[in-house]
């Protein structure tokens, strides 16, 4: 399915938000996911299904300084 991940069109095999997070190897990272401009709570990642051209922003919190 084609999704817009952090502004770029990407073709990937995913049914839910959780699949997208796993695809990019971001499980266990300090991450906030926005789908079409709305924050999706972590508990809901496995339940929210993605649809073609959904705009998904993977906001990866940065700890260094």
């Amino acid at each position, binding site marked *: 399915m084609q999704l817009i991940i952090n502004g770029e069109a990407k073709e990937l095999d995913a049914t839910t938000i959780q699949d997208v997070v796993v695809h990019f190897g971001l499980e266990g990272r300090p991450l906030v996911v*926005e789908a079409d401009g709305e924050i999706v709570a972590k508990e809901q990642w496995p339940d929210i299904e993605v649809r073609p051209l959904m705009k998904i922003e993977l906001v990866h919190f*940065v*700890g*260094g300084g």
Partner: protein
Amino acid sequence: MDERLERYSRQMLFAPIGESGQQKLSESAVCIIGMGALGTVLANHMVRAGVGMVRIVDRDYVEKSNLQRQMLYDEDDVREGYPKAIAAERKLRRINSDVKIEAVVADVTVHNIDDLLGGMDLVLDGTDNFQTRFLLNDACFRRGIPFTYGGAVSSRGMSAILVPGKTPCLRCFLPSADSGGQTCDTIGVIAPVVDIVASYQAVEALKYLVEADKARRNSLVTFDLWSNYYYEMKLGEAAKECPCCQLKEYPALQVTETDQTVSLCGRSTVQISGHGPLNLEQWHKRLEPAAVKVELNAYLLKAELPEGERLVLFPDGRVLVQGTEDIVRAKTLYARYIGY
């Protein structure tokens, strides 16, 4: 123009600050926690801008690998092995002697955080880990002091100003302080990211201190300089179950049993404190029947346990569990023999 204000002439010509903004800055006090890459840029901005009082806090010493990005330090500081807070103070005084600079060489913990925030209008986050940041977050939100979050690693950066009662806090976005293993020490960092992140923090600090509330950024800005990515995430409302914003629990400030349990690295020993004073003679009698061997002197009581480990009790309430580095194991033995 007042001679003292001359150095701020260009900043005062900037209409949103002006002379009244400059006056507000001079009456403000800020605390910068962490004087590494972000902290040095932040301090540079605050001191040059003429913030009245700047408290800088760091536990570390200047090392050669800092010089690539920690802009207040130089080779002399490395040679002299100066604490960062002291080296920074020395440099900052030369930059602007009108600013009151207070250098604190200390590890920021639950025990001193509240004192460090005393009298401060705003806190600037120069920390390099989420654990200290969550402590800052909780202490600031409990006191009602805003803080500007900043993070930089690799070519990625992030910043937001978090204002108690007006914006969410860090915990609204992240349930735990786990950084996922990505730090400047594991995947590196390039200096331009640091300057940009800290400058985003600094400009929000200026807006806040001159009370330009309408100009406040209401988003979390995130970018990757190498891949030319930029995104702003709306801060929105506080999360429904946030332990800070809603439940007022401030988890990092709760001194729990765990906080008082430390594994003494490399010594096969776990220290558990938090018990009231221990009467060693009483404990001698109590432990004698259960222990393999008990030894008492004027300063401590040693008890060899049938499990193989050893307990060492001190009159001040500390107990060392020797023969393990496993905190859970240590607490099990502690519960078994000392109780709580």
